């Protein structure tokens, strides 16, 4: 187990810099999630930590040791790839034991450690199968098993759930969280999915355009976003951004209201609009309401409601949850 320090880390391909001045401290045993839209540099940053991409500038330390020039092996990290990257010619047991065989461990020791990891991941019955004979979920578990069998200092997971269907995703999400609690090893997890980030992370690192936008706990990011970008990225359905006269009333260039922070009430002192779409989820009802001067707003009502398309509703944002941003998308004090 080890903590990591990223000091002024940068990455450039030729003249083009894709990651700029990344500073981050990751505590020993922490579950950190890098999240951001496609192309924001999150996978590149993970690959720099893994040693698969050269670090152009700055310093990376793992467990107190400068790791810039160390090979992936010397960094003592394990990585789970988006595509699983299992060796197709090897059985599940051989895949999981490959790193140990390279360390010239005895066959008995390899078998014991592989069995231990397989038991933890319910892979026991599949040890003699080849990856081609497994389902997507089983392959993903083998990829995780290959990582845990080595007991590395740091686990790196690069969008490990993106090839799984929705049901399997949430199941595997829980398994990874439980695994982290069990092994208590530092985990760095990359995803574009803010739901994964919110549900799994101790702390989330939001990246945008090669810069860190904000680092904080999931609730910190949800309640106190450091920018309009973070406010829009964290939370589902995403935050409504309202400009124009409604924003001017609260002295902001942009006003942000989360869909769950609207009340529906009487016409007086409220924003009136027509319902254009209704999504009934059972536990929640999501309305899309067209409000004059504010555009299309998403409203998330708890429980089941009987509004229909074409109905007129009167919305009132709860004042204590209104987020205010200046012209540059930076927050104004509430």
């Amino acid at each position, binding site marked *: 187990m080890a903590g990591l320090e990223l000091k002024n880390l940068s990455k450039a391909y030729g003249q083009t810099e894709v990651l700029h001045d990344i500073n981050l401290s990751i505590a020993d045993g922490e579950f950190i999630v890098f999240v951001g839209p496609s192309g924001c540099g999150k996978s590149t940053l993970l690959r720099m930590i*893994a*040693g*698969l991409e050269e670090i152009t500038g700055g310093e990376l330390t793992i467990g107190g040791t400068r790791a810039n020039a160390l*090979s*992936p*092996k010397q960094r003592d*990290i*394990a*990585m789970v*790839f*988006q*595509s699983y*990257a*299992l*060796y*197709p*010619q090897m059985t599940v047991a051989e895949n999981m034991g*490959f*790193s140990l065989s*390279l*360390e010239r461990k005895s066959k008995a020791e390899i078998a014991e450690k592989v069995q231990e990891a397989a038991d933890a991941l319910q892979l026991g019955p599949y040890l003699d199968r080849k990856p081609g004979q497994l389902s997507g979920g089983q392959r993903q578990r083998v990829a995780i098993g*290959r990582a845990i069998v*080595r007991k590395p200092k740091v686990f790196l997971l690069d969008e490990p759930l993106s090839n799984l269907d929705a049901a399997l995703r949430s199941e595997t999400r829980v398994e990874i969280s439980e695994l982290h609690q069990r092994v208590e090893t530092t985990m760095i997890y990359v995803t574009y999915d803010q739901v994964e980030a919110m549900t799994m992370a101790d702390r989330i690192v939001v990246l945008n355009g090669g810069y860190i936008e904000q680092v904080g706990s999931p609730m910190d990011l949800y309640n106190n976003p450091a920018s309009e970008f973070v406010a829009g990225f964290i939370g589902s359905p995403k935050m409504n951004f309202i400009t124009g006269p409604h924003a001017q009333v609260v002295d902001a260039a942009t006003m942000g209201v989360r869909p769950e922070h609207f009340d529906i009430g009487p016409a007086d002192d409220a924003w009136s609009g027509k319902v254009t779409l209704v999504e009934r989820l059972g536990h929640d009802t999501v309305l899309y309401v067209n409000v004059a001067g504010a555009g299309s707003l998403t409203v998330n009502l708890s429980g089941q409601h009987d509004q229909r398309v074409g109905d007129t509703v009167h919305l009132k944002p709860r004042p204590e949850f209104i987020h205010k941003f200046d012209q540059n998308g930076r927050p104004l004090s509430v």
Partner: protein
Amino acid sequence: MARKWLLLFVLGVIAVLMAAPLVLTVFTSLKPTTELVNPAWYPPQELTFDHYVRVWTDGGFSGYFVNTLIISVVDAIVMILIASLAAYAMVFMEFRGKMLLQLLFVLGLMIPVTAVVLPLFQIVRSLGLLNSHLGVIFADLALAVSVFVFMFTSYFAGVPKALHEAARIDGATEFQIYRRVVMPIATPAVVTTALLEFLWSWNDLLLRLLLMTRDEMRTLSVGLLNFQGTMTRDVTGLSSGTAIMAIPVVLLFLVFQRSFVRGMTAGAVK
């Protein structure tokens, strides 16, 4: 349905055209000399293996066969090693001069053998390797390596980069990744290289004629010339010698047909 029959007919005609020379050669090689007056496409009335025995013993084919086998097998094995290692470096590694090396290999594809045969002869002679297996093997490898590097490169390009990266994370060296991860999944390319290089080496005449002048070093293709004079031709000797030369190649293709086709199409369908 009509299309299917037409296709079968066309394929049948092509198959007959391809098989005819081989069948006629086998017929002739098994006929007693007295039956040679009959048309070549007449099957032998009475089977004889005398010509095979004569060619194998008096014709020196037993020695030529061993020479050919040594050169072809070594050629195939060394070619697999050299070409796959070079292709591995091209696909999975970054190094200075990579582009230049790739250009050189492309150049190797474009230059015809006949254009370099004289300089090659001089090089082999200056190395003191004339009339040795090693001299021919060097020349064979040098002339064909570009083709097989190209083939392995196409195949390796289809191997997901993540596999290479996963193996690096697992702690494997480049050579361990080559040997334990990449080569085991490159079987079709290995089989194709082995077969093609073996075949080219087995059938080549020009280099062997040039680089092996002593009788005891000759190969089968050169040995066949013994049965053809300026004025005369030993038809049965030539036929049975050709059959001896063709049989191993046909057998190899029959056994490895499937892998061979997969290897040949690997770059195209990846």
